[in-house]
C-alpha cells in the first residue's frame, strides 16, 4: 500500500470512509475496483470521509481508494455551449454512447470534446505582456457566440510564441517566455469562485419579456433572485421562460433534482426555439446541467457549483450570463442527506447548520464585475425554491430571502385560478428599482418609475377593497371604488397574466410594457371623467374598444397599434357618457 492510497473502511449509502489515505479536503478520489468518483469532505484522524457521486451498492470494505491530487474541477474551453452535462460535467450524449439508456457507474467522460478542432484566432502577438485572465485569442464557438480564450488566472508573462490556426483544446496555442504552455482548455475547481478585479453595483435590468417581472419587480444584470413556490405553481415554466427570453448573452440552466421528462422537454424544445434577441437558435447560447431527482445525490450537490463555475468563466469573457437553478431546495436536501450520513449535529429541520452560509456563498458568486481583462461582465442567478407545503418559513426559503434582492413569490391560489405567471404581486418584491430607475428613465420613458408606482398602488388598493367585497358584494361599493376594481382587474388580466406558451404573448418588450401600463391608467382617467359627466359605470367599462385593446395583444405588432386603440377607447368612453 502506497503512502498515497488507502482502502475502504466503511460504506453507508453515498458516504464512504477510507483509511490509510492522506488526502486533502475536497480532493477527488477514485473509490473501489470500479473507480467511482468521490470527493473528500471530512478528515478524521487517519480516516477520510468521501461523498461518492455514483451508486455504491456492491462495494466492499477493503477495496482500494486512489488519490487524484485534484479538487473537483470543470474543464473550461470551447465546446461548453449547446452541451448537456450531468452534475459532475460528464456530457450526457457521451454517457449514452458508452453505457446506453441507463446511467451505469464508473464511467469517466471529459467535459469538453478533446478531439474536436477549433479555428483559433490569436489576438495578441509575440512579445506582448499578458496578465492573468488576458484574452489571447478567439474561437467562433457557435453561430452567435465568440469564445474568448483567456490566460488562466494564475499565469502571466510575455508571449514567446502564438499562432492562429486549427487546434483541439489540449494543443498548445501559445507559450510564454517562462516556458508555460497555454492550451484552449483550462481547469478550475468548482468550489472556488473565479477571480475578478472588482464588483460593481448593478445598473442595467435583465430584460425577461415577462411583464410582471420586468415592470413591477425588475432584476438587475448581476443580481440574484429567488422564486419560491409550491408544486404546480409554475416554477419550472417560469425558469424555462427566463432561459428562453431573457436578454443574457449566455444561459446556464441547472436542472437540479428535478424530473427527467422536464429535462427531455428542454432538450427537445431549445434547439428549435429562436432567441428573440439574436434571431438564432437558443441552444447556441445555452449550457445545460441535468441531475434528475433519481441520479446520485452527491452529484446533485456538486451540480450547482459546476454550473456557476461555467457561468463565471463566460462572465470573465465579458458576457452577461444568466444562471437558472431549478431547484435549490433539492441542492439543500442533498446537503442535508450527506450531512445526516456524516452524523453532523443538525440545524433547523434537519438541515446542516452551515446551510445558510452555503446558500450565501453560492448567491454571492452572482454579480456584475470588472473582469481581470478590464471588461464588464455579469452573472445573474435565479434560484427556484421548492418549500415543503408551499410554506416559505422553512430554512431554504428563508436562507435564500436573506441574500437575494428580488423575490418572485409563486402562489398556488393564483395557479389554481389559472392566472399565469402565478407570481403574487402583493408578496413579491425587488430591491433594484432604485438602482435601475435611471436606466428606465433614460431608455424607455422618463415617467417609467412613476407609472410603476401607480400600477402597484392600484393593486394594493384592490386587495383592501376585495376584503370588503367578500363581505358585502361589489354592488355595495361606491362607483369610484367599483371603477378601481375594474381597473385593477384590467391590470391583472391584461397586464399581469401572460401566456408563456403563446407565440406573441410570451415575450413583451419594455416599450410595449410601458405602453400597456399607460393604457390602463388612461382608461382609468377617461372613465373617471366620463363618470363625473354622468356616464354609467356599466356603459363606460363595457365599450367594445377596450375589449379590442385587451384582446389585440395576442397579435404581432401590437406595440405600434396600442396608441390608436387607446384613442378609440377614449372616444367611445366619452361618447358613452354623452348618451346619458
Amino acid at each position, binding site marked *: 500500500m502506497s503512502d498515497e492510497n488507502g482502502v475502504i473502511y466503511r460504506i453507508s449509502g453515498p458516504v464512504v470512509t477510507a483509511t490509510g489515505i492522506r488526502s486533502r479536503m475536497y480532493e477527488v478520489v477514485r473509490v473501489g475496483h470500479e473507480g467511482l468518483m468521490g470527493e473528500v469532505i471530512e478528515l478524521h484522524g487517519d480516516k477520510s470521509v468521501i461523498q461518492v457521486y455514483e451508486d455504491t451498492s456492491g462495494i466492499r470494505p477493503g477495496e482500494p481508494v486512489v488519490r487524484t491530487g485534484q479538487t473537483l474541477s470543470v474543464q473550461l474551453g470551447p465546446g461548453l455551449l449547446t452541451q448537456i452535462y450531468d452534475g459532475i460535467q460528464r456530457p450526457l450524449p457521451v454517457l449514452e454512447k458508452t453505457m446506453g439508456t441507463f*446511467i*451505469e457507474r464508473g464511467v469517466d467522460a471529459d467535459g469538453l470534446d478533446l478531439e474536436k478542432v477549433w479555428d483559433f484566432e490569436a489576438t495578441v502577438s509575440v512579445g506582448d505582456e499578458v496578465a492573468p485572465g488576458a484574452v489571447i485569442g478567439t474561437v467562433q464557438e457557435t453561430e452567435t457566440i465568440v469564445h474568448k480564450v483567456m490566460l488562466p488566472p494564475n499565469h502571466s508573462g510575455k508571449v514567446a510564441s502564438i499562432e492562429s490556426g486549427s487546434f483541439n483544446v489540449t494543443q498548445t496555442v501559445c507559450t510564454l517566455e517562462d516556458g508555460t504552455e497555454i492550451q484552449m482548455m483550462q481547469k478550475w475547481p468548482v468550489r472556488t469562485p473565479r477571480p475578478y478585479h472588482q464588483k460593481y453595483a448593478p445598473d442595467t435590468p435583465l430584460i425577461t419579456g415577462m411583464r410582471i417581472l420586468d415592470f413591477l419587480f425588475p432584476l438587475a444584470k448581476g443580481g440574484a433572485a429567488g422564486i419560491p413556490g409550491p408544486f404546480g405553481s409554475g416554477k419550472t415554466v417560469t425558469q424555462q421562460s427566463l432561459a428562453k427570453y431573457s436578454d443574457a448573452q449566455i444561459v446556464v440552466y441547472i436542472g437540479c433534482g428535478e424530473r427527467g421528462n422536464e429535462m427531455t422537454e428542454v432538450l427537445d424544445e431549445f434547439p428549435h426555439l429562436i432567441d428573440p434577441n439574436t434571431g438564432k437558435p437558443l441552444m447556441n447560447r445555452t449550457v445545460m446541467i441535468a441531475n434528475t431527482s433519481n441520479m446520485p445525490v452527491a452529484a446533485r450537490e456538486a451540480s450547482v457549483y459546476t454550473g456557476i463555475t461555467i457561468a463565471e468563466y463566460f462572465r470573465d469573457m465579458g458576457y452577461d450570463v444568466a444562471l437558472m437553478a431549478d431547484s435549490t431546495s433539492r441542492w439543500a436536501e442533498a446537503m442535508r442527506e450527506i450531512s445526516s450520513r456524516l452524523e453532523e449535529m443538525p440545524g433547523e429541520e434537519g438541515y446542516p447548520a452551515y446551510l445558510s452560509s452555503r446558500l450565501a456563498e453560492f448567491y454571492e458568486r452572482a454579480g456584475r464585475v470588472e473582469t481581470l481583462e478590464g471588461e464588464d461582465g455579469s452573472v445573474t442567478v435565479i434560484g427556484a425554491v421548492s418549500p415543503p407545503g408551499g410554506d416559505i418559513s422553512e430554512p431554504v426559503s428563508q436562507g435564500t430571502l436573506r441574500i437575494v434582492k428580488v423575490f418572485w413569490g409563486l402562489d398556488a391560489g393564483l395557479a389554481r385560478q389559472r392566472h399565469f405567471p402565478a407570481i403574487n404581486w402583493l408578496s413579491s418584491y425587488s430591491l433594484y428599482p432604485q438602482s435601475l430607475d435611471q436606466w428606465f428613465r433614460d431608455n424607455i420613458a422618463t415617467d417609467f418609475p412613476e407609472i410603476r408606482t401607480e400600477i402597484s398602488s392600484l393593486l394594493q388598493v384592490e386587495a383592501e377593497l376585495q376584503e370588503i367585497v367578500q363581505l358585502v358584494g361589489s354592488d355595495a361599493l361606491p362607483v369610484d371604488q367599483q371603477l378601481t376594481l375594474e381597473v385593477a382587474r384590467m391590470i391583472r388580466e391584461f397586464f399581469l397574466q401572460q401566456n408563456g406558451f403563446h407565440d406573441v404573448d410570451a415575450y413583451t418588450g419594455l416599450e410595449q410594457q410601458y405602453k400597456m401600463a399607460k393604457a390602463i391608467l388612461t382608461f382609468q382617467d377617461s372613465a373617471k371623467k366620463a363618470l363625473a359627466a354622468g356616464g354609467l359605470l356599466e356603459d363606460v367599462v363595457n365599450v367594445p374598444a377596450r375589449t379590442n385593446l385587451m384582446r389585440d395583444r395576442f397579435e404581432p405588432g401590437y406595440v405600434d397599434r396600442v396608441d390608436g386603440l387607446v384613442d378609440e377607447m377614449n372616444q367611445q368612453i366619452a361618447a358613452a357618457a354623452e348618451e346619458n
Partner: protein
Amino acid sequence: MSGKEYRTITDVKGPLVFLEKTEPVAFGEIVQLRLTDGTMKNGQVLDTSDDMVVVQVFEGTAGVDLGSSVKFMGDVFKLPVSKDLIGRILDGAGRPRDGGPAIVAEGEADIIGAAINPYSRQSPHDFIQTGISAIDCCTTLVRGQKLPIFSASGLPHNDIALQIARQAKLKGSDEEFIVVFCAMGITAEEYNFFRSDLERTGALENAVLFVNLADDPAVERLITPRLALTAAEYLAFEQDYHVLVVYTDVTNYCDALRQIGAAREEVPGRRGYPGYMYTDLAMLYERAGLVKGKKGSITQFPILTMPGDDITHPIPDLSGYITEGQIVISRELHGSGIYPPINVLPSLSRLMGGCIGEKTTREDHKSVSDQMYAAYAQGRELRGLVAIVGEDALNERDKQLLDFSGLFEDKFLRQSRDENRSIDETLDLCWDLMQNISTKYLVRLDQKWIDKYHPTEKK
C-alpha cells in the same frame, strides 16, 4: 463468495441487526439469517465497515437472538426476469404466491435500477384514453407519465385505479397494457378486491402482481415497489410492452422508510420522515417514461392516501414535486354521492399540453378543457358567496355559472364504474353542458369552435 455463516450479532434493534467481525461485506448485499429454531429470514446490508455491519431484516426481527447465524449471499438484490412473469402473483419479496412454480429466469436485474439518462428519454406525447371524463378532459393521462392519485382514507381510489387499469387504451388502438400491480401494506380485503376484479375482467392474464399485505413485514415494503418496477422495466424496455404500473399505498411505503430511519437513529426531517425521502421516492417515480429506440413504455399510477386529507403532508408534498401532476380525490364530492369524486381544480396533468389537440384527441380539446375548468372554478367560488348573500343577489352571469357547477358535478364528473366514455363522447358532453351558459360568457372558447361544435349556435 464463501458460504461462511457468522454468529457475531451484537445488537438487534427494531428491524435492524448489527454484527461484527465479518469478512468485507458489500453495501446493499443480500443476507440470509438462520434463527436458532431453524427459521430463515432475509435481509439487506444498510451500512458496512470493517468493524460493524448493519442489516435490515425484511421479515422483522422477531425471534432473532444473538446466537442466530448470518450468511452473506455475495450479491445485491436481483429479480429473476422473464416473460413468464406475466400472469403471475408474487409476494412482496418476489416469491410465487399463487402456488405456481418458481420463475424461470431469462436474466437477472438489479432491483435498485439505474437512472435513465435524460438525454436518452423520449418526450411522452401519446394520449391514453381512460374513459373517465374528468381525467380525459381535464387532467389528461399520457403514455409514459407518472400521475398519482392523491386520496385519503375512506375514498374510492381503488375503484378509480381499477377502472383506469381496465379501460386505459390508446385512442384508436387495441393495444393492451400489461398491468404491473404492486400492493404495499394494503389489507387482505383490498387485495382481494383488486384481485377478483382483475380476474373477473380477465385482466389477470395480462398482469403481474407483487403483493405485500398489511400483516406482511413492513420492511419488505421497501423492496416490493422496486421489484415491481424492475419487472416493469424489463417488460417495457426488453420486451416492448406498454406497461401500466399501479401501486398502492405509497403512504405505507413511506411509513416503512420512516421506521428504518428511526431504528438507525437518523436525524429526521419533517414529521419524522427521513431527509432522503425525496430522493428515495424519486427513485421509484422516475422509473417511468419512454426511451429512444425502445418500443415499450412505463406509465405509473401510484396511489397515496393523504394523512388527515392534508395535501401539504410530506408524502403528497414530496410526491407532487416529482410526479407529473396529480389527481385529487375529494371527500366533499364523495360525500355528495358523486363517483368518481375527482376534484379537477387542484388536479393537474403536466404533460397534457403536449398530447391533446387535433392530431391526438380533438382540435377543440384545449379550449373546451380551459372553459370547463374556468366556469366550474367560478361556479364553485360563487357557492361561498351565495351562502352569505343568497342566490337572488347574483347577476345573470353568476347564476348561470352557479348552476353550471352543479351540472358539472352531476353530469360530467358522475359516471358509473363501468362506463367507458370515448374522448369524443366526453367532449360532446362538455359542449352539451356549456349550452347552459350564454356564449358571451364563454370567453375561453375560440369562436371557431363555437361555430363548429356548439349544439345550438353552430353554423
